[in-house]
């Protein structure tokens, strides 16, 4: 993985994914505040994503690295009309690795093609966000003790949600059983179901999950957005079905954990926060260890 850009979760094999998760566990157990001494990391955020940026910057800072970059494109030469290519070519002179967040799809792959230093994709529009997927995997591994043979519930917007698509692709290495719970308008696209068919993995589709929730090892919640519905009536009908409440957790497995990429709006009721099965805030902390592992591995330090 040394010197290789990370653009899509599909860039990593199963073994490489497991290697990153191992390194993340090492960082969690034993911080290494000197590891990135003398290294400069660029964070180029063409759109604001405070959570992701802070997570990356925290990861670099806790390893002793320095950060240069911008936090939104209006304060940089981009606002003067500089092309992405020129910005990347220039910035790759100033840093050992570039972390890029960009609203256009495919921007990270393009940046990795023109950059002299590796690029880590921190989200390219609706396309890919591989570090999110790796931190999701780390959270699953940490809470379940394994990634193999789990029953994963993906809930909410399964049509447009890039995080659930990437998670599905990554978990397909581990003999996962999938339960897709979504309104009809927002079902998992056929291409992913065909992919699971090819691999011989089991999946089930539901429009409600109160009946089956007791089978879940992991519930991965996403938000059902009003603007995804062409008919507002349809949204009104389904909006409460995909809200997780404390009372629903009564007969669930002891090892169940609830994940969410955050920010949440109302799809997980705040009363769930008191349950020890609520894991979404720790999941965000895991993002720091996972991103440390990704950066250290690409820089050849781990």
């Amino acid at each position, binding site marked *: 993985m040394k010197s290789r850009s990370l653009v899509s979760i599909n860039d990593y094999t199963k073994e490489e994914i497991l290697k990153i998760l191992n390194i993340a566990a090492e960082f969690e157990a034993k911080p290494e505040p000197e590891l990135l001494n003398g290294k400069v990391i660029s964070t180029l955020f063409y759109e604001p994503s405070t959570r992701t940026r802070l997570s990356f910057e925290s990861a670099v800072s806790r390893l002793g690295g320095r950060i240069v970059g911008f936090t939104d494109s209006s304060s940089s030469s981009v606002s003067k009309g500089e*092309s992405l*290519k020129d910005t990347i070519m220039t910035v790759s002179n100033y840093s050992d690795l570039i972390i890029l967040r960009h609203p*256009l*799809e*495919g921007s990270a*792959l*393009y940046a990795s093609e023109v950059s002299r230093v590796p690029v880590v994709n921190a989200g*390219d529009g609706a396309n890919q966000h591989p570090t999110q997927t790796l931190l999701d995997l780390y959270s699953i591994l940490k809470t379940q003790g394994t990634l193999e043979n789990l029953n994963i519930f993906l809930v909410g917007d399964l049509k447009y949600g890039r995080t659930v698509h990437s998670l599905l692709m990554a978990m397909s290495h581990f003999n996962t059983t999938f339960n897709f719970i979504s309104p009809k308008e927002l079902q998992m696209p056929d291409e992913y179901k065909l992919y699971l068919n090819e691999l011989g993995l089991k999946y089930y589709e539901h429009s409600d999950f109160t009946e089956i929730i007791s089978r879940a090892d992991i519930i991965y919640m996403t938000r059902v957005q009003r603007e995804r519905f062409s008919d507002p009536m349809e949204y009104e009908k389904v909006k409460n079905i995909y809200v997780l409440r404390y009372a629903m957790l009564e007969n669930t497995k002891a090892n169940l954990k609830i994940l969410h990429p955050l920010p949440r709006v109302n799809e997980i009721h705040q009363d769930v926060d008191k349950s020890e099965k609520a894991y979404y805030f720790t999941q965000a902390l895991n993002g720091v260890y996972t991103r440390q592992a990704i950066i250290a591995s690409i820089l050849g330090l781990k």
Partner: protein
Amino acid sequence: MRDVKQLSVSGIKNGTVIDHIPAKNLFKVISILGLEKFDNRITFGTNLESKKLGRKAIIKVAGKTFVDDDVNRIALVAPEAKLNIINNYKVVEKYNVEVPKEIIGIARCVNPKCITNHEQIITRFTVIPGNEIALKCRYCEKITDQEHLNIR
């Protein structure tokens, strides 16, 4: 005996005849092959009757044979096209176009949020097999189907 007047328009001594082009895509084929920049004599006819295509077009390029890669790029807009290589007024070789595995720098990605529509990037698509040509963008991974195919 052939009519000499007609021969000067429709016959070529040496070169290539591209037949069975859908009439509506004639100018796209011309543009893909870059014929507007050629100095060779080129004749074309369009809105000719065709049992298979309804209306077809035909292009004759004197003194030029195309390499496979050049020609296969027109498969995007003329998948039924047939090429006849002419030598001394005779057809010496015939072949059909084949859809290539990758399309580089011809088509435009249908996704308005794709980076290739915002920066000067040579587009790259993998061709998804099937009856209708569909292209998967290397960059944004979205699929451009026949209906939305745009040649740049």
